[in-house]
C-alpha cells in the first residue's frame, strides 16, 4: 500500500478532498501539518494540496515555502521522491523554485471557478501515464493567480524536454486562453519528471456524481 503525505498549511482547504481521492485509490494517506520537520518515512508521494496558504499574503505561496516541512520536501524531491502540487501547491512549488516559472494574477483579474477542458500534452511521466497524449479531460479550476509565466528560453526548454503536462483547450482540443498563461500552460513538471504542478484540481473530479471522474485517471498514475 503506497503512502501519500498531504501537506496542510494555515489556509489550505483541499487537503480533505485530496485525502478522499487518494483513499479511494486504496492508499494510506496522511495529512501533515506544515510545522512538522519531516515527512513520514516510506512516503511515496507528497501532495501539496490547494487552498490559500497564509491568505495568499505577499504572493500566493510566498510564505508557505519557508514552512519547516518544506525543507524535508526539498530533500525528498532531491532524492527522487514524487511531489505533486495542486493549485496553491503549484504556486508554492514555483515560489520554492522546485518548478520553473511563476504564477501571476489572471489576465482578466477574475477568480475563475468552473470545469475546464485541458489537453494532455505529455504522458511519458508517472503522473499522466494512464492518459493518452492529446486526450481531453474536463477538470475543475478555481484560482485567481493561475497565469503561468516563463521567459522564452524557459518555455523552449519545457517544450524540448516534454515538461509540459497540460494545456487549457476548447472542446475540440484547440488551445484556449483561460487565464493568460504562456502557451495556455495548465501544468508542468521538472526536467527529472518527479516534481509536478498544475492549476486544475483532479481531486475534485473523482466520481461521476461530482461531474466526471477524469481526475482519478490522473492521480492513479502515482499509485497503480
Amino acid at each position, binding site marked *: 500500500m503506497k503512502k501519500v503525505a498531504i501537506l496542510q498549511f494555515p489556509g489550505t482547504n483541499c487537503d480533505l478532498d485530496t485525502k478522499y481521492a487518494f483513499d479511494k485509490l486504496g492508499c494510506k494517506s496522511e495529512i501533515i501539518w506544515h510545522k512538522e520537520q519531516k515527512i513520514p518515512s516510506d512516503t511515496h508521494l507528497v501532495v501539496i494540496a490547494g487552498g490559500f496558504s497564509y491568505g495568499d499574503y*505577499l504572493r500566493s505561496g510566498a*510564505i508557505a515555502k519557508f514552512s519547516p516541512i518544506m525543507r524535508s520536501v526539498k530533500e525528498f524531491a532531491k532524492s527522487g521522491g514524487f511531489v505533486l502540487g495542486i493549485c496553491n501547491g503549484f504556486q508554492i512549488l514555483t515560489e520554492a523554485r522546485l518548478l520553473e*516559472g511563476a504564477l*501571476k*494574477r*489572471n*489576465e482578466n483579474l477574475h477568480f475563475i471557478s468552473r470545469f475546464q477542458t485541458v489537453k494532455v500534452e505529455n504522458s511519458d511521466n508517472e503522473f499522466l501515464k494512464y492518459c493518452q497524449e492529446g486526450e481531453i479531460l474536463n477538470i475543475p479550476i478555481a484560482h485567481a493567480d493561475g497565469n503561468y*509565466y*516563463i521567459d522564452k528560453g524557459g518555455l523552449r526548454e519545457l517544450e524540448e524536454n516534454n515538461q509540459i503536462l497540460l494545456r487549457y483547450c476548447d472542446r475540440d482540443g484547440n488551445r484556449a486562453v483561460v487565464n*493568460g498563461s504562456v502557451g495556455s500552460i495548465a501544468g508542468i513538471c521538472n526536467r527529472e519528471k518527479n516534481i509536478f504542478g498544475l492549476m486544475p484540481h483532479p481531486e475534485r473530479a473523482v466520481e461521476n456524481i461530482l461531474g466526471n471522474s477524469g481526475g482519478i485517471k490522473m492521480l492513479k498514475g502515482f499509485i497503480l
Partner: protein
Amino acid sequence: MRAIVNIFLKEGVLDPQGKAVHHALDALGFEGVEDVRIGKQIILKLKSLNIEEAKAEVEKMAEEILANTVIEDYTIEIVE
C-alpha cells in the same frame, strides 16, 4: 531608519492590473496616459543605523522573499 522597497512586474511581463486601470482611465477620458504599472511598496522600520549594512540586508530580504525575481524587479530606498 526605514527602508522603502518598491516591487513591480518586470518590463516585458504583462501587468493585468495595470492594463485594467489603463482601460478605466481611458474610459474616464484621461487620454494622456501611455502605460500603467501597478506594484507594491513595503516599508520596513530597521534597527540598523548603518546605511550600507541596511541596504545589503534589505537586498537579501528582497531576493529571498519580498520579490519573486522570476517576474518582479525591485528598488530599495533607505530613509533616515
